[in-house]
């Protein structure tokens, strides 16, 4: 039978088919190839194992890192916040007790869990990957079935290396055409979410397809898959191809020799069959896409940067209208204001969505030789210690520092403000992260989600801006694209 990519990966991991058929069918039990762990969603799971006297079944398929709570300054000093310090110390104790590999603050492989897995070559095509973090969907960029789970499921995977999963529906997101200069993977995914809504992907695994997706680098594909959860999807995937293999080759945990050949032979089968069908298909035109930005308090509330803040009355649905009214009030915005007239206080370049080396390069190219708006604060937080080292080897840290940005150590940072990197009440931020929820980046903080190049241009002008708004505008050819 013809299958989609997601169905192939699912079928290859079924340990036990659920009993029963139709509405009475029990979920399938699936094997999990890689379990990523961090300090926030694991302590209660480790404690559960301890209370039940259960071992962690496969430490050799488990890896942990410290990311959510970690400070991005003074990382050689004890963590000032005592509850954060306790949570990090608890992870260290648990990993030591259960034999889990841990990359701690200060280690060259420490960083955001979704940046670390791919960078070590642990995320590979055709795998099942889980983590107690909703942005696990990032790893789908490799053609892996990757899902965020809650703490009870974290404990379940620790104890059994499996998960009971309900079947999913499939949705193709077809993106055909060529992105214009200054338009990026981030704009694709923000436009997809605005189109299908924050619940549009609910129950689905999304497969991103089409010429515009094929042309993207791995870093860019990760940006897209990362935000699948913002459309409510169970997971997002891109079929592996030569771009994927080129990224994989030579990574510390990539297969070698005969294993590499066997792996590639298998990976080549990981495509949706030509005669397979999706439950739903959605089309997006890459040729006409513009830089995208959110105006509201959920990631579906976005428009093209050249547009204006919408009027609540424009929404037909009563719930959407009420949500828009509430969002405008929280965001302190007037309907009808051009997005480009909106002034920001802070620019945040970072998060598991946009903190990889290409994101930093793209932003650095925009600001090189320019001056930051003096009223804007800019934070640059590399996704991992390795990305930071790589960027420093290329001199990007100098570009950011000369511009007046703060060059920080790796972690989740201001994406969710669990560490000291937070917005003040009422402060407005252009952020390359993934969620513009009320209070997400700090109590009362106001978030506009943008791409790295829009973040960079905004830091120069002080208002939401695209690279083409700069004076002088960069040559089109000088704006880094997300191409492979």
């Amino acid at each position: 039978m013809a299958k989609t990519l997601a169905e192939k990966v699912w079928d290859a991991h079924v340990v036990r088919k659920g009993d029963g058929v139709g509405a009475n069918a029990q979920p399938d039990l699936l094997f999990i190839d890689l379990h990523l762990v961090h300090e926030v969603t694991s302590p209660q799971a480790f404690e559960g194992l301890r209370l039940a006297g259960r071992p962690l079944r496969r430490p050799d398929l488990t890896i942990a890192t410290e990311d959510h709570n970690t400070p991005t300054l003074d990382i050689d000093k004890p963590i000032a916040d005592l509850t954060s310090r306790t949570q990090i110390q608890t992870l260290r104790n648990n990993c030591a007790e259960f034999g889990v590999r841990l990359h701690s603050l200060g280690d060259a492989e420490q960083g955001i869990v979704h940046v670390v897995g791919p960078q070590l070559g642990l995320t590979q095509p055709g795998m099942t990957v889980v983590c107690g973090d909703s942005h696990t969907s990032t790893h789908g960029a490799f053609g892996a079935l990757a899902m965020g789970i809650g703490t009870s499921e974290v404990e379940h995977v620790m104890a059994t290396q499996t998960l009971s999963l309900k079947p999913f529906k499939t949705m193709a997101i077809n993106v055909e055409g060529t992105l214009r200069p200054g338009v990026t993977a981030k704009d694709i995914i923000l436009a997809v979410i605005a189109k299908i809504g924050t619940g549009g992907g609910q129950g689905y695994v999304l497969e991103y397809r089409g010429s515009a997706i094929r042309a993207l680098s791995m870093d860019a594909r990760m940006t897209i898959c990362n935000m699948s959860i913002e459309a409510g999807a169970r997971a997002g995937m891109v079929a592996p191809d030569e771009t994927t293999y080129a990224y994989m080759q030579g990574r510390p945990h990539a297969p070698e020799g005969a294993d590499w050949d066997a792996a590639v032979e298998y990976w080549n089968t990981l495509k949706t069959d030509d005669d397979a069908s999706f439950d739903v298909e959605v089309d997006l035109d890459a040729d006409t896409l513009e830089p995208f930005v959110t105006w509201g308090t959920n990631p579906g509330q976005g428009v093209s940067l050249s547009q204006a803040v919408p009027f609540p009355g424009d929404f037909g649905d009563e719930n959407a209208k009420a949500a828009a009214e509430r969002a405008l009030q929280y965001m302190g915005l007037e309907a009808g204001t051009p997005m480009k007239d909106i002034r920001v206080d802070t620019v945040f370049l970072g998060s598991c969505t946009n903190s990889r080396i290409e994101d930093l390069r793209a932003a650095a190219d925009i600001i090189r030789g320019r001056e930051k708006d003096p009223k804007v604060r800019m934070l640059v937080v590399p996704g991992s210690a390795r990305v930071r080292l790589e960027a420093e080897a290329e001199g990007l840290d100098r570009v950011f520092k000369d511009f007046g940005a703060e060059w920080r150590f790796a972690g989740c940072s201001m994406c969710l403000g669990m560490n000291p990197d937070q917005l003040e009440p009422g402060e407005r931020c252009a952020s390359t992260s993934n969620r513009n929820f009320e209070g997400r980046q700090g109590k009362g903080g106001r978030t506009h989600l943008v791409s790295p190049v829009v973040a960079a241009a905004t830091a120069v002008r002080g208002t939401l801006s695209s690279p083409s708004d700069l004076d002088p505008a960069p040559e089109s050819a000088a704006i880094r694209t997300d191409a492979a």
Partner: protein
Amino acid sequence: MEKFTKHTGIGVPLRQSNVDTDQIIPAVYLKRITRTGFEDALFSAWRKDSSFILNQEPFNAGSVLVAGPDFGTGSSREHAVWALKDYGFKAVLSSRFADIFRGNSGKQGLLAAQVAQDDIELIWKELENAPGTQVTVDLESKTVVCGNIVAPFEIDDYTRWRLLEGLDDIGLTLQHEADITAYEATRPSFKPKTLPAKVS
């Protein structure tokens, strides 16, 4: 897990869509390493506003939350479910739940009952017209009763069975340990292992 068959308690109308998990429990509370004691964290930003529904009697004693569509979107934090339970909620009604939130609820014995939006609107009106009205959520018959309103709700059969029986997931899975071991023996050698650690 405690068995869930039927619950009756004060209904709380939360007229809002897209109630994300950052609203249910802000990230600052996720630094704790315990599984209980999150009642203070529930909707903590909104509870600072005296007009918020949970700051009004008798809704502050509610145990059935009736919310707009797309409840529980965003982060995978199970703390959102713990906070709702710790506050005293036994069931949440919405026309659409985020997948991870719904999964987490099922693991913790919090009933996430999917009710058609038209019925949600009727229940909202009833609860606002007569604050303190009791809502009964019956998992056996998959119905919600609120005043004269009787509405069906949806929940997948597997979760329903586990809730009715109060079953522990890990215990269920470990009954099939032989299958897991057999599967492990077939994994190809090219699949990566985290140990021994390799770094760049």
